[in-house]
């Protein structure tokens, strides 16, 4: 018999037992149990360090844990302020430091409520799905951190066959300094449902805080689900995110992550195509300027034959910006007819800017069509010259080329006004100089 060595639990600064005890109060018992379990798992996973492969290029010291205090769980309320473009959506959720505001009248077949309310009103769904989408090879510290400490929990369920033309907007606007926001999202799209969700992260300028998000997405047979994340936090924010999706037979999921704001970001997007004809698209756009640091990892997991996944991440680095992309394609044994694509293109716009691209494959499939490619470089001088011969000055020509570079991903974003906003943000970043 081997002896079990009990290693003492490890906690990230600011998220220890005392902090945990302070956060669990008056919640549904299901939620409390899950938090307890997650807190134990969280403690058992060693604190990540830059010696870990996953954190080699993004030292967890950069997160400056310990500077932030968890905000109390944000209470649900009525949707208050309506912004100009709220009309453009079927459902709007507005999350601020103090309130999780929900649309009053929801379309038929659509449930949008807090996780706590869902635990009471839809216990069977919570039981079956909550904390079940992730399929990591090893313990993920920040995922468990969120599972234990989340303070803005949202549940979205779209019933069988329901089609939302305009989709759902979740808008974050954070003002509190040195706070930790831990959004937790559970999305279930039943068979043949069709909808899009846009998560829009914004915060007031210069407010330093931590956002550690975890999201789970389930798309059942024939569902078509688009999830767009527009990360436009203020320039002093640390953003850590874990996204996990599961896609069933004939379903199609788009996971589009647009990283523009914040100071440091560490993002993981994992998607399992679980049944034949399941299809996943992972789109990414990131633009690191000034001293921004963006680290992203994608996992395309093929758990059945005849499954498809396509990943396209496009990034630019300017000034002293730094980006890391790491991708994994994995197919389980016996998977035939798997199509998996992985493309990562990087524009390095300045001498001081840097991008690392690490595509990887773990292939266990017998028959797999797989491609992965990465490009790295500055703007093409021939394209630049071509535009200039048409009267367009160099600054404008560069702008046109950078926008063109990103456009394939931008086109994946539903809602033209949001595409326009993306164009504006990219232009603004190009115009900014760190001198």
């Amino acid at each position: 018999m081997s002896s079990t060595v009990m290693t003492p639990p490890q906690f990230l600064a600011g998220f220890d037992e005392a902090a945990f005890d302070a956060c669990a109060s008056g919640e549904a018992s299901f939620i409390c149990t899950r938090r307890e379990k997650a807190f134990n798992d969280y403690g058992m996973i060693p604190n990540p360090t830059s010696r870990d492969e996953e954190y080699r290029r993004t030292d967890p010291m950069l997160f400056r844990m310990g500077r932030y205090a968890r905000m109390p769980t944000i209470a649900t309320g009525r949707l208050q302020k309506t912004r100009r473009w709220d009309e453009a959506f079927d459902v709007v959720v507005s999350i601020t430091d103090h309130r999780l505001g929900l649309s009053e009248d929801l379309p038929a077949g659509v449930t949008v409520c807090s996780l706590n309310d869902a635990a009471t009103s839809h216990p069977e769904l919570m039981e079956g799905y909550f904390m079940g989408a992730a399929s990591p090879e090893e313990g993920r510290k920040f995922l468990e951190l969120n599972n234990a400490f989340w303070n803005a929990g949202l549940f979205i369920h779209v019933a069988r066959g329901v089609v939302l033309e305009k989709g759902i907007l979740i808008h974050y606007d954070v003002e509190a300094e040195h706070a930790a926001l831990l959004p937790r999202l559970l999305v279930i799209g039943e068979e043949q449902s069709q909808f899009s969700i846009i998560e829009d992260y914004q915060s007031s300028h210069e407010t330093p805080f931590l956002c550690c998000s975890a999201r789970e997405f389930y798309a059942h047979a024939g569902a078509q689900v688009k999830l767009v994340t527009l990360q436009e936090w203020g320039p002093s924010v640390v953003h850590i995110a874990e996204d996990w999706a599961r896609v069933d037979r004939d379903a199609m999921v788009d996971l589009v992550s647009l990283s523009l704001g914040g100071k440091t970001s560490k993002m993981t997007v994992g998607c399992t195509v679980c049944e034949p004809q399941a299809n996943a698209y992972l789109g990414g756009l990131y633009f690191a300027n000034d001293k921004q640091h963006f680290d992203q990892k994608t996992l395309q997991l093929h758990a059945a034959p005849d499954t498809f996944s396509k990943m396209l991440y496009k990034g630019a680095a300017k000034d002293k910006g730094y980006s890391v992309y790491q991708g994994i394609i994995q197919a389980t044994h016996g998977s035939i007819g798997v199509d998996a694509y992985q493309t990562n293109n990087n524009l390095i716009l300045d001498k001081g800017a840097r991008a690392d691209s690490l595509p990887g494959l773990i292939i266990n499939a017998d028959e797999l069509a797989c491609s992965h490619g990465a490009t790295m470089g500055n703007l093409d001088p021939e394209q630049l010259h071509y535009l200039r011969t048409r009267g367009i000055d160099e600054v404008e020509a560069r702008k046109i080329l950078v926008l063109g570079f990103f456009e394939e991903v931008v086109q994946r974003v539903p809602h033209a006004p949001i595409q326009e906003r993306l164009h504006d943000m990219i232009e603004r970043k190009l115009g900014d100089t760190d001198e």
Partner: protein
Amino acid sequence: MNKELIICDLHVSIDGSPILKGVNLDIKPGEVHALMGPNGSGKSTLSSVLMGHPAYEVTKGSITFGGEDLLDLAPEERARLGMFLAFQYPVAIPGVNVSKFLKSAADAIHPDGKVNATDFLKDLRANMAYLEMDAAFANRGLNEGFSGGEKKRMEILQMLTLKPHLAIMDETDSGLDIDALRVVSKGVNKLMDEPFSLLVITHYERILEYLKPKFLHILMDGRVVLSGGPELVKQLEEKGYDWVKEAAAKQQSAAV
């Protein structure tokens, strides 16, 4: 406005190796000139230098357009003076929408820095119809997945949009089918309604029948070795470039 192009004793090198070795050429407003010459003789080099491609080094000589020294000017400044090059090999720029790009170019060329959006679209549609192009091209990525001939047509669409005073067409006819050549030539001729001069680079007689140059020059090994009228092309088609060398030698000795 006197938009005369004067190229005087132009020497050009790339990566240290000389390509153009003393080119002289004079194109007055309203004139159509043809430039022919064997592969590698320097025709595209000349067009690139005229538009200010940064890879080419002018080691000697001058180029002026309407009295302005072009060599001091950036490509975009040359375009704003009214110069246009239809490239032999137009680049593709995926993700850059054709109509947005054309609008940016039209804005940039316009003296007020902006054209009226409605007029622009009306113009664009008319020009595309004139060139018998499917309207769907306006919303595609620039030359993205275009066939060789479609790219050439796109060059001429840009030319019609920007209405230059002087255009250089570098083998626009290569790769165009018979109908496309007719359509493209019709498009170019439309520009002749206004004062417009043209340098047509080609290997074939056919486009010259449409564009009717008054002058024809033959470039060999980086020099214009023979200049004459359009009748030169017939002789060239019959006798090939060896004949040009002899004729050039005769012309030179006659000049001495």
